């Protein structure tokens, strides 16, 4: 154990916490965007529900 270097500690903690937020905010936005794309994709791929055939009815 030794005397604290508060300036260096503040740099490590500040930049470190900032990096964590940047990484997770990026993942949030990318996941949000990709989620919407995937959902639209799935929706387009789903077959249209069959319409009742009037002639047969």
């Amino acid at each position, binding site marked *: 154990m030794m005397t604290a270097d508060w300036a260096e500690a503040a740099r*490590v903690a500040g930049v*470190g916490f900032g990096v*964590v937020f940047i*990484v*997770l905010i990026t993942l949030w936005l990318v996941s949000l965007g*990709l*989620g919407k794309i995937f959902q639209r994709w799935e929706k387009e791929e789903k077959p249209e529900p069959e319409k009742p055939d009037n002639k047969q009815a």
Partner: protein
Amino acid sequence: MFGIGTALASFTWQHLIMLLIGGLLIYLGISRKWEPFILVPLGFGIIVGNLPLGYGVMGFQMPDGTLLSYLPPQWTELIQQGGKPVGFLSRIFQYGFGWEIIPLLMFLGLGAMTDFGPLIARPIYFLLGAAAQFGVYAAFFLAIALGFTIPEACSIGIIGGADGPTTVYLTQILSPHLMGFTAVAAYTYMAMVPLIQPPVIKLITTKKERAIYMTPQLRTVSNREKIAFPIYVTIIVGLLVPAALPLIATFMFGNLLSVTGVTTRLSNTLATAFTDVITVFLGFCVGAYVSAASCLHPGPLLVFALGVAAFAFATAGGVIFAKLLNLVLQPKINPLIGAAGVSAVPMSARVVQRMGQQANSRNFLLMHAMGPNVAGVIGTAAAAGAFITLLGY
């Protein structure tokens, strides 16, 4: 005869204390069922590693030829000066931990067990996982104030991430002499989540807030999304924090194998036998590393106190951030789920579920809590990677 007299003559009160600590961990694992898969091997490792003259277990030959029955905290430097491990566990320790392999293999298995579905369904939970990392930095400053060096403070702070393998991985890189203590603290406190979190949560939330109702169902996540998730998370984290890549890559690779639908046999093995083998070696080796010679000093013992503080601050960080999010979110989220951002999968999610139901019997928060829970694992890995990069290791 047979060394009995010599071993007994070398037995000190410090050894006795360590044997009692080992016994206590085994008791907690078996009787209280606190993380038994880790605490039982840890406890037994502590007992085995603290028997005098047990050179064959954790023995180390010093550069001058002297034999020690324990692995000295400065073993990495001593190896460079000609020292060498001579026990079966100290050799496993040298390669498994010195080369940072075992924590990463553990992550491979954990990835195979993790379901990212709730996080993919509601990605805003990433932010709660980030906020809960506040505990890491609060404990970091506390450790600095108590006189620890910056690398030591990083290893202590990361306990707040409630992620055992990441704690072991980071400590081995930044301050290997603290590894036994940070690992024991991380795994013990993970088991104590049901005791540590509720009072902190109650202190900073009202019953009305805890009773906020959330619909239990999240949107259905397609298999394509589940396959894409580990791939793009690895790429993004790898580009932003390359030092976190070993942790994230193994975690996400394990997860990818579990969602492809065609590698089920591999993921099943990773999630069962493979993880069990790694867990045994992790617990046994780290336990044996916690020697009386290096443990019973005020400095290392402070790690345990700071570990509790780290958990408490992490819980508070997640809950307070969830309350802040409620200022802009509609419908509001239950702030309890912020507490699950401390990882500790799935214990903290279970705590949230229980407390949520106590406040409002209609609430079923488990699936919501699993989102911040797994986001916290990614957040802690990013925090560890940032520490490694910032300190230039």
